Protein backbone atom coordinates (compact mmCIF):
# COMPACT_ATOMS: atom_id res chain seq x y z
CA UNK A 1 0.00 0.00 0.00
CA UNK A 2 1.32 3.47 -0.91
CA UNK A 3 2.05 6.16 1.70
CA UNK A 4 -0.81 8.12 0.26
CA UNK A 5 -3.24 5.21 0.80
CA UNK A 6 -1.94 4.64 4.33
CA UNK A 7 -2.52 8.28 5.22
CA UNK A 8 -6.12 8.24 3.99
CA UNK A 9 -6.80 4.94 5.74
CA UNK A 10 -5.49 6.31 9.05
CA UNK A 11 -7.66 9.41 8.70
CA UNK A 12 -10.65 7.30 7.83
CA UNK A 13 -10.11 5.01 10.82
CA UNK A 14 -10.03 8.04 13.11
CA UNK A 15 -13.54 9.12 12.07
CA UNK A 16 -16.43 8.71 14.44
CA UNK A 17 -18.58 6.66 12.11
CA UNK A 18 -22.31 5.98 12.18
CA UNK A 19 -23.50 2.42 12.82
CA UNK A 20 -23.70 1.45 9.17
CA UNK A 21 -22.64 3.28 6.01
CA UNK A 22 -23.15 1.90 2.53
CA UNK A 23 -21.00 3.40 -0.23
CA UNK A 24 -22.06 2.58 -3.80
CA UNK A 25 -19.61 2.55 -6.69
CA UNK A 26 -20.65 2.85 -10.33
CA UNK A 27 -17.59 1.59 -12.12
CA UNK A 28 -16.30 -1.92 -12.75
CA UNK A 29 -12.77 -0.50 -12.63
CA UNK A 30 -13.38 0.81 -9.11
CA UNK A 31 -14.79 -2.53 -8.03
CA UNK A 32 -11.78 -4.30 -9.49
CA UNK A 33 -9.35 -2.02 -7.61
CA UNK A 34 -11.34 -2.39 -4.37
CA UNK A 35 -11.39 -6.17 -4.61
CA UNK A 36 -7.79 -6.60 -5.78
CA UNK A 37 -6.42 -4.25 -3.11
CA UNK A 38 -8.59 -5.95 -0.48
CA UNK A 39 -10.04 -2.60 0.65
CA UNK A 40 -13.17 -4.22 2.13
CA UNK A 41 -10.98 -6.09 4.59
CA UNK A 42 -9.13 -3.03 5.89
CA UNK A 43 -12.05 -0.61 6.26
CA UNK A 44 -13.98 -0.40 9.54
CA UNK A 45 -16.61 -3.17 9.62
CA UNK A 46 -19.53 -0.75 9.54
CA UNK A 47 -18.45 0.65 6.15
CA UNK A 48 -19.92 -1.41 3.31
CA UNK A 49 -18.71 -1.03 -0.26
CA UNK A 50 -21.44 -1.93 -2.72
CA UNK A 51 -20.71 -2.67 -6.38
CA UNK A 52 -23.35 -0.94 -8.49
CA UNK A 53 -24.29 -0.36 -12.13
CA UNK A 54 -20.72 -0.28 -13.45
CA UNK A 55 -20.83 -2.84 -16.21
CA UNK A 56 -22.17 -1.89 -19.66
CA UNK A 57 -21.97 -5.45 -20.92
CA UNK A 58 -24.08 -6.64 -17.97
CA UNK A 59 -26.93 -4.27 -18.78
CA UNK A 60 -26.74 -4.58 -22.56
CA UNK A 61 -30.26 -5.63 -23.66
CA UNK A 62 -30.63 -9.32 -24.33
CA UNK A 63 -32.67 -8.45 -27.45
CA UNK A 64 -29.76 -6.41 -28.81
CA UNK A 65 -27.34 -9.33 -28.44
CA UNK A 66 -29.89 -11.64 -30.06
CA UNK A 67 -30.34 -9.15 -32.92
CA UNK A 68 -26.55 -8.87 -33.39
CA UNK A 69 -26.28 -12.66 -33.54
CA UNK A 70 -29.06 -12.90 -36.11
CA UNK A 71 -27.53 -10.19 -38.31
CA UNK A 72 -24.36 -12.28 -38.47
CA UNK A 73 -26.13 -15.64 -38.80
CA UNK A 74 -28.91 -14.74 -41.23
CA UNK A 75 -27.82 -11.63 -43.11
CA UNK A 76 -24.16 -12.46 -43.53
CA UNK A 77 -22.75 -9.26 -42.09
CA UNK A 78 -19.33 -9.09 -40.45
CA UNK A 79 -20.26 -8.44 -36.82
CA UNK A 80 -17.73 -6.69 -34.62
CA UNK A 81 -18.01 -6.35 -30.86
CA UNK A 82 -15.79 -5.63 -27.88
CA UNK A 83 -14.41 -8.96 -26.68
CA UNK A 84 -16.39 -8.84 -23.43
CA UNK A 85 -19.66 -9.20 -25.35
CA UNK A 86 -18.86 -12.48 -27.06
CA UNK A 87 -19.71 -14.88 -24.25
CA UNK A 88 -22.80 -13.11 -22.89
CA UNK A 89 -25.69 -15.59 -23.07
CA UNK A 90 -29.11 -14.93 -24.56
CA UNK A 91 -32.25 -16.95 -23.85
CA UNK A 92 -32.78 -19.38 -26.74
CA UNK A 93 -33.80 -23.03 -27.10
CA UNK A 94 -30.96 -25.47 -26.44
CA UNK A 95 -30.32 -26.25 -30.11
CA UNK A 96 -29.63 -22.61 -31.04
CA UNK A 97 -26.39 -20.66 -30.51
CA UNK A 98 -26.75 -18.83 -27.19
CA UNK A 99 -23.94 -16.28 -27.52
CA UNK A 100 -21.99 -14.42 -30.17
CA UNK A 101 -19.16 -16.86 -29.54
CA UNK A 102 -21.40 -19.84 -30.27
CA UNK A 103 -22.84 -18.09 -33.32
CA UNK A 104 -19.28 -17.68 -34.52
CA UNK A 105 -18.62 -21.38 -33.97
CA UNK A 106 -21.76 -22.04 -36.03
CA UNK A 107 -20.16 -20.22 -38.97
CA UNK A 108 -21.13 -16.57 -38.50
CA UNK A 109 -18.42 -13.97 -39.20
CA UNK A 110 -18.12 -12.44 -35.73
CA UNK A 111 -14.89 -10.78 -34.65
CA UNK A 112 -13.80 -9.29 -31.32
CA UNK A 113 -12.21 -5.85 -31.50
CA UNK A 114 -10.55 -3.64 -28.90
CA UNK A 115 -11.06 -0.25 -30.56
CA UNK A 116 -13.45 1.58 -32.88
CA UNK A 117 -10.38 2.20 -35.06
CA UNK A 118 -10.32 -1.53 -35.80
CA UNK A 119 -13.96 -1.39 -36.93
CA UNK A 120 -13.06 1.24 -39.53
CA UNK A 121 -10.11 -0.88 -40.66
CA UNK A 122 -12.18 -4.06 -41.04
CA UNK A 123 -14.78 -2.14 -43.09
CA UNK A 124 -12.04 -0.74 -45.35
CA UNK A 125 -10.51 -4.19 -45.77
CA UNK A 126 -13.87 -5.65 -46.85
CA UNK A 127 -15.53 -2.99 -49.08
CA UNK A 128 -17.84 -5.64 -50.58
CA UNK A 129 -19.26 -6.71 -47.20
CA UNK A 130 -21.62 -5.04 -44.77
CA UNK A 131 -19.83 -4.54 -41.45
CA UNK A 132 -21.76 -3.93 -38.22
CA UNK A 133 -20.06 -2.63 -35.08
CA UNK A 134 -22.21 -3.75 -32.15
CA UNK A 135 -21.03 -1.36 -29.46
CA UNK A 136 -21.86 -1.54 -25.76
CA UNK A 137 -20.34 0.97 -23.40
CA UNK A 138 -20.74 3.92 -21.09
CA UNK A 139 -19.81 7.55 -21.79
CA UNK A 140 -16.06 6.88 -21.68
CA UNK A 141 -16.36 4.35 -24.49
CA UNK A 142 -19.06 6.13 -26.45
CA UNK A 143 -17.02 9.31 -26.80
CA UNK A 144 -14.50 7.33 -28.91
CA UNK A 145 -17.41 5.74 -30.80
CA UNK A 146 -18.73 9.26 -31.48
CA UNK A 147 -15.23 10.29 -32.61
CA UNK A 148 -15.16 7.34 -35.00
CA UNK A 149 -18.53 8.35 -36.50
CA UNK A 150 -17.72 12.06 -36.67
CA UNK A 151 -14.38 11.40 -38.38
CA UNK A 152 -16.28 9.80 -41.27
CA UNK A 153 -17.30 6.17 -41.68
CA UNK A 154 -16.74 3.90 -44.69
CA UNK A 155 -20.11 3.44 -46.51
CA UNK A 156 -20.27 -0.23 -45.52
CA UNK A 157 -19.82 0.33 -41.77
CA UNK A 158 -22.95 0.44 -39.62
CA UNK A 159 -23.32 0.94 -35.88
CA UNK A 160 -25.62 -1.06 -33.61
CA UNK A 161 -25.61 1.08 -30.48
CA UNK A 162 -26.04 -0.28 -26.97
CA UNK A 163 -24.43 2.81 -25.45
CA UNK A 164 -25.63 3.90 -22.02
CA UNK A 165 -25.23 6.86 -19.67
CA UNK A 166 -24.31 6.06 -16.09
CA UNK A 167 -25.90 8.87 -14.07
CA UNK A 168 -29.52 8.08 -15.07
CA UNK A 169 -29.18 4.61 -13.47
CA UNK A 170 -28.08 6.26 -10.21
CA UNK A 171 -30.93 8.78 -10.53
CA UNK A 172 -33.36 5.87 -10.96
CA UNK A 173 -32.03 4.20 -7.79
CA UNK A 174 -32.34 7.47 -5.87
CA UNK A 175 -35.91 7.95 -7.07
CA UNK A 176 -36.83 4.42 -6.02
CA UNK A 177 -38.33 3.22 -2.75
CA UNK A 178 -35.01 2.20 -1.21
CA UNK A 179 -31.88 3.49 -2.95
CA UNK A 180 -29.78 1.13 -0.82
CA UNK A 181 -26.79 3.42 -0.31
CA UNK A 182 -25.79 6.39 1.85
CA UNK A 183 -22.91 7.73 -0.24
CA UNK A 184 -21.64 7.51 -3.80
CA UNK A 185 -18.23 7.11 -5.39
CA UNK A 186 -18.62 8.46 -8.92
CA UNK A 187 -16.79 6.93 -11.90
CA UNK A 188 -13.38 8.46 -12.66
CA UNK A 189 -13.13 8.03 -16.39
CA UNK A 190 -16.77 8.87 -17.09
CA UNK A 191 -16.09 12.12 -15.21
CA UNK A 192 -12.86 12.60 -17.19
CA UNK A 193 -14.91 12.72 -20.37
CA UNK A 194 -18.19 14.28 -19.18
CA UNK A 195 -16.92 16.45 -16.34
CA UNK A 196 -17.54 15.82 -12.64
CA UNK A 197 -20.48 18.30 -12.63
CA UNK A 198 -22.77 15.59 -14.03
CA UNK A 199 -22.82 14.10 -10.53
CA UNK A 200 -23.62 17.32 -8.69
CA UNK A 201 -27.32 16.37 -8.63
CA UNK A 202 -26.60 13.53 -6.19
CA UNK A 203 -25.51 15.73 -3.25
CA UNK A 204 -27.52 18.71 -4.57
CA UNK A 205 -30.96 17.13 -4.99
CA UNK A 206 -30.69 14.01 -2.86
CA UNK A 207 -28.21 15.14 -0.17
CA UNK A 208 -26.09 12.04 -0.77
CA UNK A 209 -22.32 12.61 -0.19
CA UNK A 210 -20.45 12.07 -3.46
CA UNK A 211 -16.82 11.93 -4.57
CA UNK A 212 -15.24 11.19 -7.93
CA UNK A 213 -12.42 8.67 -7.50
CA UNK A 214 -9.51 7.38 -9.52
CA UNK A 215 -8.38 3.79 -9.53
CA UNK A 216 -5.52 3.65 -7.03
CA UNK A 217 -6.14 2.54 -3.46
CA UNK A 218 -5.08 6.06 -2.41
CA UNK A 219 -7.65 7.81 -4.58
CA UNK A 220 -10.42 5.39 -3.58
CA UNK A 221 -9.62 5.72 0.14
CA UNK A 222 -9.54 9.52 -0.26
CA UNK A 223 -13.01 9.32 -1.80
CA UNK A 224 -14.30 7.03 0.98
CA UNK A 225 -12.87 9.42 3.57
CA UNK A 226 -14.47 12.38 1.81
CA UNK A 227 -17.96 10.90 1.65
CA UNK A 228 -17.79 9.59 5.23
CA UNK A 229 -16.76 12.99 6.48
CA UNK A 230 -19.49 14.67 4.44
CA UNK A 231 -21.96 12.26 6.01
CA UNK A 232 -20.76 12.83 9.58
CA UNK A 233 -20.79 16.61 9.15
CA UNK A 234 -24.12 16.49 7.27
CA UNK A 235 -22.51 18.57 4.54
CA UNK A 236 -22.98 16.71 1.24
CA UNK A 237 -21.12 18.10 -1.74
CA UNK A 238 -19.38 16.83 -4.86
CA UNK A 239 -15.71 16.15 -4.17
CA UNK A 240 -13.10 15.37 -6.82
CA UNK A 241 -10.52 12.88 -5.54
CA UNK A 242 -9.05 12.31 -9.02
CA UNK A 243 -8.01 15.90 -9.87
CA UNK A 244 -4.89 14.83 -11.76
CA UNK A 245 -7.17 13.53 -14.54
CA UNK A 246 -10.71 14.79 -13.93
CA UNK A 247 -11.07 18.46 -14.80
CA UNK A 248 -13.95 20.88 -14.66
CA UNK A 249 -16.14 20.48 -17.74
CA UNK A 250 -14.49 17.19 -18.69
CA UNK A 251 -13.08 16.74 -22.17
CA UNK A 252 -14.74 19.48 -24.23
CA UNK A 253 -13.98 17.83 -27.58
CA UNK A 254 -15.40 14.52 -26.44
CA UNK A 255 -18.61 16.11 -25.18
CA UNK A 256 -19.03 18.05 -28.41
CA UNK A 257 -18.56 14.85 -30.46
CA UNK A 258 -21.07 12.94 -28.34
CA UNK A 259 -23.58 15.74 -28.74
CA UNK A 260 -23.04 15.92 -32.49
CA UNK A 261 -23.36 12.19 -33.13
CA UNK A 262 -25.83 10.89 -30.55
CA UNK A 263 -29.23 11.86 -29.26
CA UNK A 264 -30.04 10.72 -25.74
CA UNK A 265 -33.25 8.78 -25.19
CA UNK A 266 -34.99 6.21 -23.06
CA UNK A 267 -33.18 2.88 -23.20
CA UNK A 268 -33.63 -0.62 -21.91
CA UNK A 269 -31.27 -2.08 -19.29
CA UNK A 270 -31.20 -5.86 -19.16
CA UNK A 271 -33.21 -7.27 -16.31
CA UNK A 272 -33.95 -3.75 -15.08
CA UNK A 273 -36.16 -2.25 -17.77
CA UNK A 274 -36.30 1.13 -19.49
CA UNK A 275 -34.51 4.09 -17.89
CA UNK A 276 -35.31 7.61 -19.16
CA UNK A 277 -32.56 9.54 -20.97
CA UNK A 278 -30.05 6.74 -20.57
CA UNK A 279 -29.27 5.57 -24.10
CA UNK A 280 -27.07 6.88 -26.93
CA UNK A 281 -29.05 6.82 -30.19
CA UNK A 282 -27.47 7.78 -33.54
CA UNK A 283 -28.82 11.10 -34.76
CA UNK A 284 -30.94 11.28 -37.92
CA UNK A 285 -28.07 12.66 -40.01
CA UNK A 286 -26.18 9.39 -39.46
CA UNK A 287 -29.22 7.20 -40.26
CA UNK A 288 -27.35 5.67 -43.23
CA UNK A 289 -24.94 4.13 -40.70
CA UNK A 290 -27.55 3.03 -38.18
CA UNK A 291 -27.93 -0.76 -38.18
CA UNK A 292 -31.22 -0.51 -36.29
CA UNK A 293 -32.71 1.59 -39.10
CA UNK A 294 -31.02 -0.03 -42.10
CA UNK A 295 -31.03 -3.78 -41.42
CA UNK A 296 -33.82 -6.33 -40.86
CA UNK A 297 -35.24 -6.47 -37.34
CA UNK A 298 -34.95 -10.03 -36.04
CA UNK A 299 -36.08 -9.31 -32.52
CA UNK A 300 -39.00 -11.56 -31.73
CA UNK A 301 -41.16 -10.39 -28.87
CA UNK A 302 -42.67 -13.86 -28.50
CA UNK A 303 -39.31 -15.54 -27.86
CA UNK A 304 -39.24 -17.19 -24.45
CA UNK A 305 -37.65 -15.02 -21.71
CA UNK A 306 -36.93 -12.27 -24.23
CA UNK A 307 -35.01 -9.42 -22.59
CA UNK A 308 -34.55 -11.23 -19.31
CA UNK A 309 -31.52 -12.50 -17.46
CA UNK A 310 -30.92 -16.26 -17.78
CA UNK A 311 -33.11 -18.44 -15.50
CA UNK A 312 -31.95 -18.29 -11.87
CA UNK A 313 -29.44 -15.49 -12.56
CA UNK A 314 -29.57 -12.55 -10.15
CA UNK A 315 -27.29 -10.29 -12.20
CA UNK A 316 -29.88 -7.49 -12.37
CA UNK A 317 -30.03 -7.23 -8.57
CA UNK A 318 -26.23 -7.33 -8.40
CA UNK A 319 -26.09 -4.45 -10.92
CA UNK A 320 -28.58 -2.45 -8.85
CA UNK A 321 -26.52 -3.02 -5.70
CA UNK A 322 -29.41 -4.88 -4.05
CA UNK A 323 -27.39 -8.02 -3.39
CA UNK A 324 -23.71 -8.90 -3.38
CA UNK A 325 -22.51 -11.42 -6.00
CA UNK A 326 -22.37 -14.05 -3.25
CA UNK A 327 -26.08 -13.47 -2.67
CA UNK A 328 -26.91 -15.10 -6.01
CA UNK A 329 -27.60 -18.79 -5.58
CA UNK A 330 -25.77 -19.59 -8.84
CA UNK A 331 -22.53 -17.81 -7.83
CA UNK A 332 -19.66 -20.27 -7.71
CA UNK A 333 -22.01 -23.21 -8.17
CA UNK A 334 -23.66 -23.24 -11.60
CA UNK A 335 -21.98 -19.95 -12.55
CA UNK A 336 -18.19 -19.47 -12.77
CA UNK A 337 -16.02 -17.59 -15.30
CA UNK A 338 -15.34 -20.90 -17.06
CA UNK A 339 -19.05 -21.61 -17.46
CA UNK A 340 -20.79 -18.29 -16.90
CA UNK A 341 -24.56 -18.19 -16.68
CA UNK A 342 -25.08 -14.44 -16.40
CA UNK A 343 -23.33 -11.40 -17.87
CA UNK A 344 -21.94 -10.31 -14.47
CA UNK A 345 -19.74 -13.44 -14.52
CA UNK A 346 -18.73 -12.87 -18.18
CA UNK A 347 -17.52 -9.29 -18.28
CA UNK A 348 -14.25 -8.11 -16.75
CA UNK A 349 -16.35 -5.32 -15.25
CA UNK A 350 -19.03 -7.59 -13.86
CA UNK A 351 -19.06 -7.71 -10.07
CA UNK A 352 -19.41 -11.51 -10.02
CA UNK A 353 -16.37 -12.05 -12.22
CA UNK A 354 -14.33 -9.51 -10.24
CA UNK A 355 -15.25 -11.14 -6.92
CA UNK A 356 -14.49 -14.60 -8.30
CA UNK A 357 -11.12 -13.43 -9.68
CA UNK A 358 -10.46 -11.85 -6.28
CA UNK A 359 -10.81 -15.25 -4.65
CA UNK A 360 -14.21 -14.73 -3.00
CA UNK A 361 -15.60 -18.24 -3.04
CA UNK A 362 -18.29 -18.39 -0.40
CA UNK A 363 -21.64 -18.95 -2.09
CA UNK A 364 -23.43 -17.72 1.03
CA UNK A 365 -26.51 -15.61 0.64
CA UNK A 366 -25.77 -11.99 1.46
CA UNK A 367 -27.79 -8.85 1.25
CA UNK A 368 -26.27 -5.57 0.22
CA UNK A 369 -29.17 -3.21 0.71
Amino acid at each position, binding site marked *: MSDDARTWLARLQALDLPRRVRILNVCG*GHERSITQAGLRGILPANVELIPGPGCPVCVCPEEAIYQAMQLALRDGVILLAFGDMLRVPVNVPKDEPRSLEQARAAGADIRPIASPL*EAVQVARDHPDRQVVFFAAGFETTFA*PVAAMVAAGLPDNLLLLSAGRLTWPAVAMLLDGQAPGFDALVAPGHVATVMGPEEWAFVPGQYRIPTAVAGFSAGSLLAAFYSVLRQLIEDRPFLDNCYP*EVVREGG*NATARRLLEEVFAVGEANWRGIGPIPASGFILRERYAAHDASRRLPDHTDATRRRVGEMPPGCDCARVVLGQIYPTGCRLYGRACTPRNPVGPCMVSDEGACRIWWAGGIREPEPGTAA
Partner: protein
Amino acid sequence: MCLAIPMQVVEIDGFNARCAAKGIEREVSLFMLQDEPPTVGDHVLVHVGYAIQVITEQHARSSWELLDEVLGGERPADA
Protein backbone atom coordinates in the same frame (compact mmCIF):
# COMPACT_ATOMS: atom_id res chain seq x y z
CA MET B 1 -14.22 -1.29 -20.39
CA CYS B 2 -13.66 2.16 -18.88
CA LEU B 3 -10.09 1.08 -18.14
CA ALA B 4 -7.61 3.58 -19.54
CA ILE B 5 -3.90 3.03 -20.12
CA PRO B 6 -1.28 5.77 -19.81
CA MET B 7 0.96 6.02 -22.89
CA GLN B 8 3.64 8.37 -24.17
CA VAL B 9 3.25 10.08 -27.55
CA VAL B 10 6.12 9.06 -29.83
CA GLU B 11 5.05 10.43 -33.20
CA ILE B 12 2.13 12.54 -34.46
CA ASP B 13 0.59 12.61 -37.94
CA GLY B 14 -2.57 14.71 -37.94
CA PHE B 15 -5.03 13.05 -35.57
CA ASN B 16 -3.06 9.81 -35.55
CA ALA B 17 -0.26 9.16 -33.15
CA ARG B 18 2.14 6.38 -32.28
CA CYS B 19 2.15 5.97 -28.56
CA ALA B 20 4.30 3.75 -26.39
CA ALA B 21 3.95 2.07 -23.03
CA LYS B 22 6.14 -0.62 -21.55
CA GLY B 23 8.00 -1.08 -24.84
CA ILE B 24 4.79 -1.69 -26.77
CA GLU B 25 3.74 0.78 -29.49
CA ARG B 26 0.19 1.35 -30.65
CA GLU B 27 -1.69 3.58 -33.08
CA VAL B 28 -3.74 6.00 -31.00
CA SER B 29 -6.29 8.53 -32.21
CA LEU B 30 -5.90 12.09 -30.96
CA PHE B 31 -9.31 13.03 -32.39
CA MET B 32 -10.73 13.62 -28.90
CA LEU B 33 -7.92 15.97 -27.87
CA GLN B 34 -8.57 18.61 -30.52
CA ASP B 35 -9.11 21.29 -27.89
CA GLU B 36 -5.89 20.41 -26.10
CA PRO B 37 -3.54 18.79 -28.65
CA PRO B 38 -0.60 16.94 -27.09
CA THR B 39 2.94 17.14 -28.46
CA VAL B 40 5.55 14.44 -28.87
CA GLY B 41 6.79 13.33 -25.47
CA ASP B 42 3.51 14.11 -23.68
CA HIS B 43 1.65 11.43 -21.74
CA VAL B 44 -1.96 10.61 -22.53
CA LEU B 45 -4.63 8.35 -21.06
CA VAL B 46 -5.80 5.92 -23.76
CA HIS B 47 -9.18 4.18 -23.79
CA VAL B 48 -10.18 1.82 -26.65
CA GLY B 49 -7.52 3.32 -28.92
CA TYR B 50 -8.41 6.96 -28.26
CA ALA B 51 -6.52 9.41 -26.09
CA ILE B 52 -9.09 10.85 -23.68
CA GLN B 53 -6.90 13.16 -21.59
CA VAL B 54 -3.37 14.57 -21.34
CA ILE B 55 -1.76 13.60 -18.04
CA THR B 56 1.52 14.31 -16.28
CA GLU B 57 4.47 11.97 -16.50
CA GLN B 58 4.19 11.41 -12.77
CA HIS B 59 0.57 10.32 -13.02
CA ALA B 60 1.42 8.07 -15.99
CA ARG B 61 4.07 6.36 -13.89
CA SER B 62 1.89 5.83 -10.83
CA SER B 63 -0.97 4.55 -13.03
CA TRP B 64 1.34 1.96 -14.54
CA GLU B 65 2.35 0.70 -11.13
CA LEU B 66 -1.33 0.34 -10.32
CA LEU B 67 -2.14 -1.40 -13.61
CA ASP B 68 0.72 -3.84 -13.08
CA GLU B 69 -0.86 -4.80 -9.77
CA VAL B 70 -4.44 -4.98 -11.01
CA LEU B 71 -3.93 -6.53 -14.43
CA GLY B 72 -1.07 -8.89 -13.73
CA GLY B 73 -0.17 -10.41 -17.05
CA GLU B 74 -2.95 -8.94 -19.22
CA ARG B 75 -1.85 -7.19 -22.40
CA PRO B 76 -2.52 -3.47 -22.91
CA ALA B 77 -4.24 -4.26 -26.23
CA ASP B 78 -7.07 -5.88 -24.31
CA ALA B 79 -7.84 -2.72 -22.42
